[in-house]
């Protein structure tokens, strides 16, 4: 029993921390620009694969840095080249183009694997190894050292981002735009530039999530969609566009799904996020902490 509860706590916290990173980025872009980015899961995917491809030749540090830089650039480029020009036309084509980007990145990842000679689905060596082992036991639960690292890094990054948004000049612009875009533009804020940075930050967060989580988790090309639907669940639970809501949603959701896995059935645990989406859409679509948007 103690072991089971520990498992829910530990694994739930770790997964919650990862989803927090992903969902905060997702929420940030939606809250600021109203952009529904379906390529968000693909950002995670491409960063994970970059790490996987480079790790053998470039070493850990370089490949992590490179993966993060590339995924941030991909975020910026996809905003500048695709989202920004379409945003003026219609909201519909923005959503469609992000869907297409997600699909494209999935194919690119597959292509990259066959060209570079990697297996499409794989596991990576863990990041941290102490005294020849990569994990330790606590009350019957086996915890890789990586998980501790994931918790630390994700909370650190999210705190930094929050600090950045509340204190820095760019952060102020982000907040201004999310409140009233037209007014902010009138005040002389370059909304496009700010949005570009927002998408880049969001891609960076997804990249960080990938880089810290992939070494202790397998990687597969279709994972992008799972990540995307799970982060939907998180933001719907917490409230679309609300950062504290995303943090809360991420943890509630992962505890719930690990609780189901341990105490009910592993097969049902994969359904938990989907169940949350349906229930929330039907009962409280604005989420726990979200703004009311119903007509």
């Amino acid at each position, binding site marked *: 029993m103690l072991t089971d509860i520990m498992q829910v706590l530990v694994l739930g916290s770790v997964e919650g921390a990862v989803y927090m990173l992903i969902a905060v980025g997702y929420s940030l872009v939606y809250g600021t620009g109203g952009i*529904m980015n379906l390529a968000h899961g693909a950002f995670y995917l491409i960063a994970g694969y970059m790490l996987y491809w480079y790790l053998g030749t470039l070493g850990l540090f370089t490949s992590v840095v490179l993966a993060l830089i590339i995924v941030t650039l991909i975020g910026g480029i996809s905003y500048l080249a695709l989202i920004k020009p379409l945003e003026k036309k219609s909201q519909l*084509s923005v959503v469609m183009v992000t869907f*297409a980007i997600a699909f494209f990145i999935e194919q690119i990842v*597959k292509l990259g694997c*066959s060209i570079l000679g990697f297996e499409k689905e794989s596991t990576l060596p863990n990041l941290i190894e102490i005294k020849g082992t990569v994990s330790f036991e606590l009350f019957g639960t086996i915890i890789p050292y990586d998980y501790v690292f994931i918790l630390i890094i994700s909370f650190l990054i999210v705190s930094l981002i929050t600090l950045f948004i509340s204190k820095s000049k760019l952060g102020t612009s982000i907040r201004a735009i999310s409140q009233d875009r037209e007014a902010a533009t009138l005040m002389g804020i370059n909304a496009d530039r700010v949005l570009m940075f927002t998408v880049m930050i969001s891609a960076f967060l997804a990249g960080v999530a990938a880089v810290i989580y992939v070494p202790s988790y397998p990687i597969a090309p279709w994972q992008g969609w799972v990540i995307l639907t799970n982060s939907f669940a998180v933001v*719907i639970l917490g409230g679309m566009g609300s950062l504290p809501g995303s943090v809360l949603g991420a943890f509630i959701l992962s505890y719930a799904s690990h609780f189901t896995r341990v105490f009910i059935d592993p097969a049902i645990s994969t359904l938990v996020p989907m169940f949350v989406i349906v229930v929330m*859409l039907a009962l409280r679509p604005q989420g726990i902490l979200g703004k009311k948007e119903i007509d």
Partner: protein
Amino acid sequence: MQIRFLNRIKENSLFVICVSVFYLVELTYILTLLYYFGYTSLILSTILYFTLFYFGFLYLAFNFTILWAAIKRNFKLIPSAIRRLMAWLGTFKGGLTLFCMLIIAIIPLLTQNAYYLGSMFIVAMIYTIYAASWDFLAGYTGQVSFGQAAFFGFAGYVTADRILIQNWPWLPSLFFGALIAVLISLIIGIPTLRLKGPYLALGTLSFASILYLLFAMPTILYGSTGLFGVPRLSENVIIEYYIVFIFVIISLTIMKAIGNSKLGTVFKSIRDDETGAEASGIHTTRYKILAFVISAFFAGIAGGFFTMRNTAVSAQIFGTTYSFYPLVMVAIGGIATISGAGVGAFFFIFLIEILRGVADFQWLPAGAADFLDDALIFSVLLILVIRFAGAGVLKSAIERLKNLWDILLGR
């Protein structure tokens, strides 16, 4: 009221209707003959039929003359819909549509290869209905469904279940599947369509994932195995071809007709200015749900056919790829056109086939085949089309062709 209606028919259109019914019966005869003689004797059996029973084509010509005389006599009295149809067929677009339909109709006379007819043309026609159903929703009302596969797949499963397990004939199974798809669409549509914001996109995408996970569970809902061994519409691929063909024409006509009707105008007003539509007293949520339901119905029809074509259905039918396909097809063909879906679907199938053919070449440099992956090429294509040709490729191409045609006719 009823008597007046009957009198009108008696006086004016009875003859036309009789002859038309007669033609229908003839067609049924030919199809029955075909069914028993097999497709290889398609032409032979047709000729045999006419020469033996009706003294050759003279009879056909005679029939045509009568029909034409009747049409001419009652031209003004033919219901306006038919007159409009005739007028439309006379225009460039109508003529082109008729021409394309005729080409598709005669394909089985040109080739009897089961692979071309079955795996290419029939699948392309099924995708036409599917893509058109997506286009109906997105094009006319501006609501985007990223989980169209939910209806497609659910109807597929239900149809397969009716045919395989309940031993129903295929036609009721097909409609039953489509009706269940309608129910599903209400379940998704009612909570999401009343909200502003991208909730429909989100709801549909997640709902398709839920269905995927549920149907992939090993023990419930036919297990991870799915259903297989579903009989095809007919063992004869040509009969299958024509059944699907007829359904494509009916479905596309209905969708197009709704689009051009008053209802379609309401849909478009919601798409163009939702607040404005609401202000002028239109209950937007209700109309959006109606459009969603119609779209789901046709996606369901397509799903039923798709399952029967594949003889099997598994959980992956709910996968993102199947939600992605109609987007690509419609983007290629042009949004809000319905007919563009057909062009997109055929283009899609042919391009995949060409890519496969190229990948089969032995002299291809190593690794080059990887670039010929259809999903990769289509995602690039979709990005490019959305970015640079929002209206789709078809519209401008048709305009060019029309200009060409006008010049040719000296207009």
